[in-house]
């Protein structure tokens, strides 16, 4: 039986190195500004959480094998080697203290895309057997059960029943030839069942044809979080197969950040071919409906609302204006956090941190950056569009006794839809 070894890890590091990585490592001047953009460093004050330092194993492989000087140093025996012990030490740095929020990639003065390199480093970590247990377990469950939380269709079927009962609408399942295949995340199904009800209402209201797939309902991708192509590709293939089977032209990723980047940006590259369909985040779809006048809303939220941009959606996918357009539709008293959009701060739970029980204290520490941002504008409620962010915001604010409820944007839109009868 094969096992995960250092050699496989090093080979994986090697295989991940490309021109951008060579340019990035060639350019780092050790200015330390990346630390000033990292919530894990800023809130712990521990310099070992400096983003560039987290990339040291990958850098050593690059230097030793991909540069003239490194080769000379290796010949002279001066080149430091990546060892199993080193990777064991770096496991905490690459997983527990990095939510892959990509803020460092945006502020690095020499232009290093650090998040890109963290993602690649994790490939080596998995192959070397140095991934956190929580993420391994989630990956295994995702492959074996179709959901990282081990959730099965029958649980979802119960939810569907609830939604149909309370809305008197039908939730379409396994319908071919519709416009959209809707994916969900297990966390949403369990923690925020309102989401399914909301889209059912909105799509009915806007006259959108859509369906769920019994073959694949899960949008999240534990393989992306742990950083392994093989697992990630299998999970993407399931989505692609379901979409192809139902012949849908569009797939909607739910209110989940990493699910969107996984399927929108990484997916085609994981399976090595372009999709026969397009991928949207639910917020993009809603904004398109709004723009074409298919969303008729009434009434406004009058309390002071602010918005948390999920990293994966805003900084890493360019969905920034859409949620603000939708907020303007239903909120009177909206105030943006000071640093928002592409410069927003991570909630602290992304990049697999929330699936990694060991990282709990760090996750809470990193949240303090978000907490300070929220306190600065003092909203009465927070709005967001990612189940992981939402859970983290709720838990974090509860921990600090902040008493600020968090709502999903999709639900909020659904709440303001003009009743069908009234419309006609």
């Amino acid at each position, binding site marked *: 039986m094969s096992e995960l070894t250092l050699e496989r890890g090093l080979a994986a590091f090697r295989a991940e190195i490309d021109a951008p990585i060579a340019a990035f490592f060639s350019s780092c001047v050790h200015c330390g500004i990346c630390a000033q953009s990292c919530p894990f460093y800023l809130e712990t004050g521990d310099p070992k959480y400096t983003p560039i330092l987290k990339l040291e194993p990958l850098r050593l492989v690059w230097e030793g094998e*991909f540069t003239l000087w490194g080769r000379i140093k290796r010949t002279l025996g001066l080149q430091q080697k990546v060892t199993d012990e080193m990777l064991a030490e770096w496991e905490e740095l690459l997983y527990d203290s990095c939510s892959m929020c990509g803020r460092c990639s945006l502020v690095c003065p020499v232009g290093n895309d650090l998040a890109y390199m963290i993602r690649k480093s994790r490939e080596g970590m998995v192959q070397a057997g140095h991934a956190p247990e929580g993420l391994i377990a989630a990956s295994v469950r995702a492959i074996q059960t179709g959901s990282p939380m081990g959730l099965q269709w029958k649980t979802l079927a119960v939810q569907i029943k609830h939604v149909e009962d309370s809305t008197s609408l039908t939730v379409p399942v396994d319908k071919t030839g519709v416009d959209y295949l809707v994916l969900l995340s297990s966390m949403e199904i369990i923690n925020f069942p309102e989401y399914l009800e909301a889209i059912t209402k909105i799509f009915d209201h806007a006259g959108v044809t859509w369906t769920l797939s019994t073959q694949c309902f899960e949008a999240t991708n534990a393989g992306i979080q742990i950083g392994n192509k093989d697992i990630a590709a299998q999970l993407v293939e399931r989505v692609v197969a379901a979409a192809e089977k139902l012949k849908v032209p569009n797939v909607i990723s739910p209110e989940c950040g990493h699910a969107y980047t996984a399927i929108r940006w990484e997916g085609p590259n994981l399976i090595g071919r372009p999709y026969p369909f397009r991928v949207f985040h639910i917020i993009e779809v809603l904004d398109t409906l709004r723009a074409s006048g298919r969303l008729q809303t009434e009434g406004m939220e009058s309390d002071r609302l602010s918005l948390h941009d999920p990293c994966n959606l805003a900084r890493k996918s360019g969905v920034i204006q859409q949620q603000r357009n939708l907020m303007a539709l239903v909120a009177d008293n909206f105030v943006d956090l000071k640093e928002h959009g592409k410069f927003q701060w991570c909630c602290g739970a992304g990049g697999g941190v929330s699936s990694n029980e060991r990282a709990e204290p760090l996750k809470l520490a990193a949240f303090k950056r978000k907490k300070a941002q929220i306190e600065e504008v003092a909203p009465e409620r927070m709005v967001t569009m990612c189940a992981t962010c939402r859970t983290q915001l709720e838990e974090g604010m509860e921990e600090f006794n902040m008493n600020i409820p968090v709502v999903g944007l999709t639900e909020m839109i659904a709440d303001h839809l003009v009743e069908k009868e009234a419309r006609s």
Partner: protein
Amino acid sequence: MIDRKTPNKTLGESLRDHGLSRRGFLKFCAATASMMALPPGMVPVIAAALEQARRPSVIWLSFQECTGCTESLTRSHAPALEDLILNLISLDYHHTLQAAAGDAAEDARLQAMEANTGQYLVIVDGSIPGPDSNPGFSTVAGRSNYEILMETVEHAAAVIAVGTCAAFGGLPQASPNPTGAMSVMDLVKDKPVINVSGCPPIPMVITGVLAHYLTFGRLPELDAYHRPLAFYGQSIHDRCYRRPFYDKGKFAETFDDEGAKLGWCLYRLGCKGPSTYNACATMRWNGGVSWPIESGHPCLGCSEPSFWDAGSFYQPLSVPLTATSGDLLTAAVGGAVVGAGVATLANKQIKTAVANRQPVTVEELEEKL
């Protein structure tokens, strides 16, 4: 036979024999101090020293040279003073100046050496084909320069190398140095050597050095190149009247632009003043009339070693000697090839890594739980 022994009279006495009054002597000392580039406050010291000094025998040897140095000295502008100084020495041998010729001339040299052994001064102008060169490159009376130099220097008190050829090898030594020319300093190791460099040296500097030796009976303070600090202690640049323009960043860029007409700094036209140590800026040439920079031409750096090989006279000091953009390009192409090699090796490794890649399986992951 002429007595070539150093006379017993002191300089003070022989000056008074020339009919010089005490005011005249004071004036002589003031002029001497000025010539030696010593402050006027030194005049009493000079006067006291001159009273005691004695008239030395001087042997002037000319080797691979152009007689420019002798011309400079003899055509100097204030002949009375230089004359006086030269009258105070006993110039016993000098090709160009002496009346004697042939064997008589060579005899004069040998006699002076014998009569003043250990006390005579040797002045050399011109460089010398080294001991390993063909001795025939330059000979006097059928004997190589090297041989004559070593023989003459053996019992000398000191050697004064006049001109850049004698001091540093000069033009004969310029690349490719066909005669294997060497400087006096290269060859004479056991005697004090004073270098009075310049092509030619300022005449006042030649006499100034002689005056110093006459006055104090010892060598003046020297710099690392054995040049008298009094004259070579400061660079042309530091004493240049155009220095304020350098400091303000006002430069002539061609020989006929407005800057050149306004007398701005000549750095960009190749002036070597910053790295050249000489007294031109204060003593000037032609009796103080002018000097190269005042006449609008950059300093060539003629009093420095290797000045013929130090790059174009008209290239600024900051320009490298031989490197060109072509060399840079060649090296860049070479680098690209080396890099391509490294990259090819690396790419091969990547390909191998990708080809041999073992996909991570759930079973492998479960092992870790």
